[in-house]
């Protein structure tokens, strides 16, 4: 019978040339690309910036500023929905469900690919941030930043963002598996994102599952977000993700028509 590894490989192959795969690559490099040009076009500012002992922290903060609040959640809404809806679009659920593998294997393999693509995005974004920080001084012939590149800080920040955006993946996966119409997961995603942004200053804003990336970003900037700590946001995010995933699994397994 089909093993999980084979199922995962098969799911991974489906992402080839898909819109979601392009979105990961373009999304990962989009903001670093803009920031690269912003630094190249303003060499005086760049000269001052590279001398500062916190140059890489600035690069990180500027990059995440545009990414955390809107682009990452929106990108996730789009990529998760596009990837999951691929089976509806191509009329392939019926073929997939007549392969000799359990429904659980299919469910976990698909989710596994989604989470891997999210990791892929974070790797590309971190690479992009590094290049957008190191290339402009080289292009402009300015001395390189004195500060060593703080890999650990970058990875830790990305790790936090990765956890904080999991509820978005979980919910979009749930809705995309249930509805054939692409507009349903898209509309639900945009609606929840807007609700979360509006509710950021609400005392119970942390109840809103799409808000944790924004909360984490503002806490990075030193803003106090209610009474909750960074770790508490991550726990809420993980809780929502587990909840959405379990719900999604049961809906998927219990679906009467699997064609």
């Amino acid at each position, binding site marked *: *019978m*089909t093993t999980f590894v*084979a*199922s995962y*490989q*098969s799911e991974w*192959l*489906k992402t*080839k*040339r*898909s819109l979601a795969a392009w979105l990961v690559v373009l999304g990962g490099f989009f903001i670093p690309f803009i920031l690269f040009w912003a630094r190249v076009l303003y060499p005086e500012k760049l000269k001052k910036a590279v001398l500062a002992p916190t140059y890489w922290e600035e690069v990180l903060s500027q990059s995440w500023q545009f990414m955390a609040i809107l682009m990452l959640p929106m990108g996730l809404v789009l990529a998760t929905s596009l990837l999951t809806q*691929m089976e509806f*679009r*191509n*009329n*392939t*659920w*019926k*073929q*997939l*469900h*007549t*392969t*000799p*593998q*359990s429904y659980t294997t299919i469910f976990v393999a698909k989710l596994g690919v989604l989470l891997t693509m999210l990791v892929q995005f974070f790797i590309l974004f971190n690479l992009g941030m590094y290049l957008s920080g190191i290339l402009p001084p080289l292009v402009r012939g300015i001395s390189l930043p004195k500060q060593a590149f703080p890999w650990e800080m970058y990875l830790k920040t990305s790790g936090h963002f990765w956890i904080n955006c999991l509820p978005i993946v979980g919910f979009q996966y749930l809705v995309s598996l249930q509805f054939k119409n692409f507009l349903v997961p898209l509309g639900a995603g945009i609606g929840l994102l807007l609700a979360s942004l509006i509710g950021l200053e609400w005392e119970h804003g942390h109840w809103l599952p799409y808000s944790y990336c924004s909360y984490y970003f503002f806490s990075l900037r030193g803003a106090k977000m209610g009474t909750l700590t960074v770790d508490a946001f991550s726990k809420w995010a993980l809780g929502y993700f587990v909840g959405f995933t379990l719900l999604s699994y049961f809906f998927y397994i219990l679906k*009467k*028509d*699997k*064609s």
Partner: protein
Amino acid sequence: MYCIETSDLSYQYSRQGNELHRVNLRVKEGSIYGFLGPNGAGKTTTLKLILGLLKKQQGQIKVFGEEFAPHRQPVLSKIGSLIESPSLYSQLTATENLSVWQKLYACPKARIQEVLELVGLGQTGTKKAGQFSLGMKQRLGIATALLHSPSVLVLDEPTNGLDPSGMVEMRELLKRLNKEHGITILISSHLLSEIEKLVTEVGIINHGKMLFEGSLGELMQRQQTAGGIRLDTSNNAEAVERLIAQGLDARQEQGKIVLPLLARSEIAQLNRALVQHQLDVYEISTVESDLESIFMTLTHP
């Protein structure tokens, strides 16, 4: 032995009415079983139930002699299927599409080229499946179904959208698969003419009920018994009365007299009798009902 067997299979989508009502279908090993019925008769629902795409509500489904549900995975590893339109990832090439399924069935990679050659898609190269014609897509769907060398093929209207030459090609391919590779085929269609040259066994379904199941020979037998004689005289009403008086099952239909089939000598005798009663006979002809009309009679009683 039956490859596929359903007993009293019933299914309803909603509370109103049954989609399927006690369907008994038996597909013999090595046969080509034509599953016929008009659109909406319940063919696709039956096939989806056999493949586990719909959750069984009532009845029994056995594949290779085993209950389907508890043996779902081993049973599915021996079945190839094409339900309605083919399932293809439009951004992938034919080879990449088959690679997706090859990994799941864990069959040798060499099978991909083999089945592509078999369905005539060996030279499609880097062309994406989304750019294929309908016929090519259908053939790629068949290639997917054949990839893991299944013992049974379940095909739901595989010739839908194909041009006449495409239909002939598909028929020849299926015949070859059955003869040379011993694959049992369960194929559904709403057109008898399309598959009568292909199948050995026939099942006819309408409104969710099986109306006929048997060999093509048995269906042909019905063709003969369903035939009759048509008569036209100067006074059909009087002629019918006289024929009934002679013990014949005569009736008027669309301005003509219709009788069951008779021997040649009986027809001559009948003609003489009518003329003796001053009735002019304008036409005597035999009506041979073809398979299509039997199908129509069964599905539109």
